[in-house]
């Protein structure tokens, strides 16, 4: 009997093999069914942005909003374009950068709140909403090694113009073309003897340590600055504005998810002080911890998760 069964099985298989072959069912598993489409959050291409992305993502997910995080997209120009294209629903942006590089507002706003209002109006016009601003400001700044400062008697940015042989500034590529870069430095400080060495963000401190560059473009919330091994140069003529962070979100994404999503995001933003940011940045950039882990610890300590 088993043999007969086996024979029947074999025959069935043969028939099946003969008939089958081309069963290309379209794969429908990716569409996701009833689950609400995730909120697509983008981040720019440096460590603090990764942290911010994780903070918003985890806080939203903790409240039941699915999130898709697209990290390391690029500079403001390109990430804002991606947002405009609809490839992103939201990303955290520095208000000053938004005004100067995206909105093309050349005149520096009188105060952070004025900058925020201008930026909010700008985004409104484009169909986006600027959510609440963070207490911390991650402004651009220039830093040098203390030895370099002593040797060349450099305390403010303007002192760089007197450095013999000129200075090399390690900075992101866009530094060359931005007002908060060589453009503004030339205008406000008559700094003509400076050349920009394009570096991936995060590499400036190493370049500074190795002597490859004399000056590094840094952010004021960088964890490295807490170590005392670097000196931040003064900016009395105000080339670098304040850079508070405010998430830009598309109006339709906000509308479909209701007011609660705004409350969750604002609750996170409100707790991001300069101290908190610098501590988290140090954990990630200096101690090599994962930004997701650091963000998780912070959210838990703040009762946001």
């Amino acid at each position, binding site marked *: 009997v088993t043999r007969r069964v086996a024979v029947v099985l074999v025959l069935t298989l043969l028939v099946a093999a003969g008939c089958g072959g081309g069963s290309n069912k379209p794969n429908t598993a990716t569409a996701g069914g009833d689950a609400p489409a995730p909120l697509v959050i983008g981040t720019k291409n440096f460590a603090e942005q990764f942290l911010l992305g994780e903070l918003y993502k985890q806080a939203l997910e903790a409240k039941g909003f699915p999130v898709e995080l697209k990290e390391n997209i*690029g*500079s403001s*120009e*390109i990430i804002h*374009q*991606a947002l405009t294209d609809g*490839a992103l629903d939201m990303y955290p942006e520095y208000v000053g950068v938004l005004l100067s590089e995206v909105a093309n507002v050349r005149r520096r706003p009188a105060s952070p709140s004025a900058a925020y209002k201008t930026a909010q109006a700008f985004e409104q016009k484009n169909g986006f909403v600027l959510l609440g601003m963070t207490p911390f400001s991650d402004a651009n700044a220039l830093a040098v090694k203390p030895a370099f400062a002593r040797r060349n008697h450099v305390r403010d940015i303007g002192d760089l113009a007197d450095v013999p042989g000129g200075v090399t500034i390690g900075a992101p590529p*866009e530094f060359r*073309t931005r007002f908060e870069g060589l453009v503004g430095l030339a205008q406000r400080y008559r700094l003509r003897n400076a050349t920009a060495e394009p570096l991936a963000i995060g590499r400036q401190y190493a370049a500074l340590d190795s002597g490859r560059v004399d000056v590094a473009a840094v952010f004021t919330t960088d964890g490295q600055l807490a170590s005392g091994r670097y000196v931040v140069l003064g900016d009395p003529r105000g080339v670098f504005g304040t850079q508070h962070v405010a998430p830009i979100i598309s109006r339709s994404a906000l509308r479909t998810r209701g007011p609660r999503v705004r409350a969750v995001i604002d609750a996170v933003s409100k707790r991001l002080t300069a101290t908190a940011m610098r501590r988290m940045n140090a954990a990630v950039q200096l101690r090599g911890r994962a930004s997701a882990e650091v963000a998780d610890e912070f959210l838990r300590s703040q009762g946001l998760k």
Partner: protein
Amino acid sequence: VTRAREGSRLVRRTFRTPLTTRVLLLSAVAAVLVGTVMVVLIVAVTGQRDAARSAFRSQEALAAGNQLEKSLITIENGVRGYVASRRERFLDPANEALSSYPGEVRQLSSLVDDDPGQQARARQIGVEIDDYVKLWARPLIGVARRQPAQARSIVITNQGRLRLDRIQRDFARLFARERAVINAREQRAEQRSSRATAIGAGGLALVLLVAGGVTLYLRRAVVRPVVTVAAATGRLAAGELSARVPARRHDELGDLARGFNAMADSLQRSRAQLEHSNAELKRSNAELDQFASVTSHDLQAPLTTISMYAELIERRHASDLNGGMALVDGIRNATQEARTLIRDLLEYSRAGRGELALEVVPVEEMVNRALEVLAGPIEAAGARVTVSELPSVRVDRAGVCRVLQNLIGNAVKFTVPGRPSEVAIGASREGTMWRIWVRDNGIGMKAEDAERIFQPFKRLHGEEAYPGTGIGLAICERIVTQHGGRIWVTSTLGEGSTFLFTLPAVETT
């Protein structure tokens, strides 16, 4: 006791499988074996075909992946070219690739959908490409339109290249895995097919072995018993009535052997009976001949005495008897008749016995001798005798002379009054014999009498019409038979008869 034995035989017969069933069973086993081998081979061939098909599919997947990679590089180069030069024509191939890549992603996904790992990789690649396009290429084109200088500095960050590198690494993994899948499948198919070949060869050998076994078995179980029975039949036909075959088997061949033995038994029994009655017959025949011979011999003496006394009475007392002489004549005639009868009887009893003095004799010589002896009766009948060319034969001269004399004598005796008698003698060859015939135009006979006339003392007519004892043809038959020939007659009543007999020819080598 008999019933019990029959019972046990029945049990054994039902217990042992009949030959037909056994042969059918063997055939079925062979058929199942061949069928199994066939199925295994078919499965192997199907497996190889499937492997080839999936290998082809994998090749297609590789081709689709390559095409997709090419599209991405086209996009990246186009975007870079546009950003660097602000010339729209750099975007033409990129735009084309931008519109074609989603279809290419779908095609790749569908080509690897039979492997979950590959499917996941393809999905991952699809997401990365989407990110590359939506978060890099398209925004960069947008930035380049409005802020060319910014776009140029963004390109320098190599973010797009990094994304592409990652995608290409994923592609490399996908390709490597796909090639491994192809190899594994081919290897498996190869293995399966070589195993199937081995099984097929083994199966074939097994089939040959089984066929050989079946042949040997049939030889042992069927052919040899049949040959034994056939040989025994031959011996039986050759006269060896004691021929028997072993009949221990309990199948159809056993039945055949038993049937043969029963037939041989019955044949031997009836042959024994026949031989017994034959001997009996011979003995009584011999006794009868002996009796006839002795009787006729012994009767001659008293008859001679009676005849002598009648002679004496006539000679000495003829005058005394007057009318009594007629009685004496009667005695003498009757005595003479009795002596003739006894002589013929003696001749018949002697004919066909004793040694034949064989010699080569021309038949014509013997015919002439007979015609000489019968000159009187021929003359009396006024018969015309025609003799055709005649051969020489190897015979007993006296015997054959007697036969010819009897036949020619009969031919001139049984004539139709008023019809001129004609007798023809001739011969014709019949195999190793000569057929000699004597034809007349006499009274002939009815067909049913043609057999009877060769019996001793059988007469078709009264002695008054045609004289004779009726022993002549019987003597003829005995002589011809002793020569190994036969004698018979063809006749038409009222028109004549032809007597024919055969004699051995002289070998003319």
